[in-house]
């Protein structure tokens, strides 16, 4: 139990510091580590991630579900602290220094450099999630429909994901009879 908590702390603490450009950048790495070290299969990872997208607030809150599954409430709390504290402490420290030295051309350079890397990692995230979630014509159609709706309208993603669940379930339910 204690060793699981320490392992969770190390894993999510490191992911916290590697999350350049936001939490989505560490999705593929998180999926691999949770699978190799904690035996959480890819489909389960993607399901928890997807449910997490229905929640309000910052978009990576679902990490605590893995902590809960592996070590109960203590696990959830450990993951919550390990995933949010290290990056927050780093940001606060660097933020104070930045205020002191003022805007430097290097801050812009770091942001410009990290942006495309973070987008590349997000592409890996899409690829990793799609590999588990896309398994037939219904899921392809639903994913593309949600993508197109979001690109061409201001629809709230929560409603789209819920609709996708309902439509997907009814389509797959009724086609399973034929």
């Amino acid at each position, binding site marked *: 139990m204690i060793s699981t908590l320490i392992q969770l702390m190390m894993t999510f603490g490191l992911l916290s510091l590697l999350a350049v450009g936001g939490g989505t950048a560490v999705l593929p790495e998180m999926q691999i580590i949770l699978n190799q070290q904690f035996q959480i299969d890819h*489909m389960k990872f993607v399901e928890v991630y997807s*449910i997490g997208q229905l929640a309000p607030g910052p978009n990576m809150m679902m990490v605590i579900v893995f902590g809960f599954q592996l070590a109960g409430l203590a696990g959830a709390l450990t993951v919550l602290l390990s995933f949010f504290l290290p990056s927050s402490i780093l940001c606060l420290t660097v933020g104070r220094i930045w205020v002191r030295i003022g805007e430097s051309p290097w801050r812009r350079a770091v942001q410009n450099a990290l942006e495309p890397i973070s987008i*590349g990692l997000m592409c890996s995230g899409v690829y990793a999630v799609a590999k588990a979630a896309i398994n037939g014509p219904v899921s392809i159609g639903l994913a593309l429909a949600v993508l197109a709706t979001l690109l061409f309208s201001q629809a709230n993603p929560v409603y789209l994901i819920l609709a996708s669940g309902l439509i997907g379930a009814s389509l797959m339910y009724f086609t399973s009879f034929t």
Partner: protein
Amino acid sequence: MADLVQGAQEHRAPADLPRPSLFELFWQFMIIGAVSFGGGIIAYEQILLVEKKKWLDLDDFMATLAISQTMPGLNSVNMAVLTGDRLCGVPGALAAGIGLILPGAAFVLIVGIAYLAKPDHPIADLLLAGIAAGATGLLAAITYKIGQTHLQHVISCIIIITTFVLMSIFKLPLIMVLLIMAPIALFIYRPK
């Protein structure tokens, strides 16, 4: 040097900056954490900080946002931590950060426990399959929206594709990908 330190303190807590109480900070960020279904938290934070409470002016907000985006971690959480610190020091950072993540954490925990406890019902599995497909579309849309401005830049595209290949095709650990790509990208985008 003394001037610099003096300047920093003045910059961090100017006399005319309204100083909220810790509870006020916690409460306002918790409201954002509770109502921001479907994302867009940075926009909620801008409305709160710049328009509603006037705790920051727009320049301050944009500067803080730039630091939030540069540093690792979730941008919205970094933003809450930095503004909390700016207004009330470390306790303020804690109050704002905890307020922002508390509602989502509670939501995810309750729904997550229900998910883990679910009896293996075929309908639940079908529903989850549809939700996962929808979330894939959402992630693709977010990635496209964030990445689209880079598509005109050849160098950006090369960095994006190389990062993707190292991560997803060569399956290198994330830390290796960053150790390879960050110095190269920093060299390319170094201040001239």
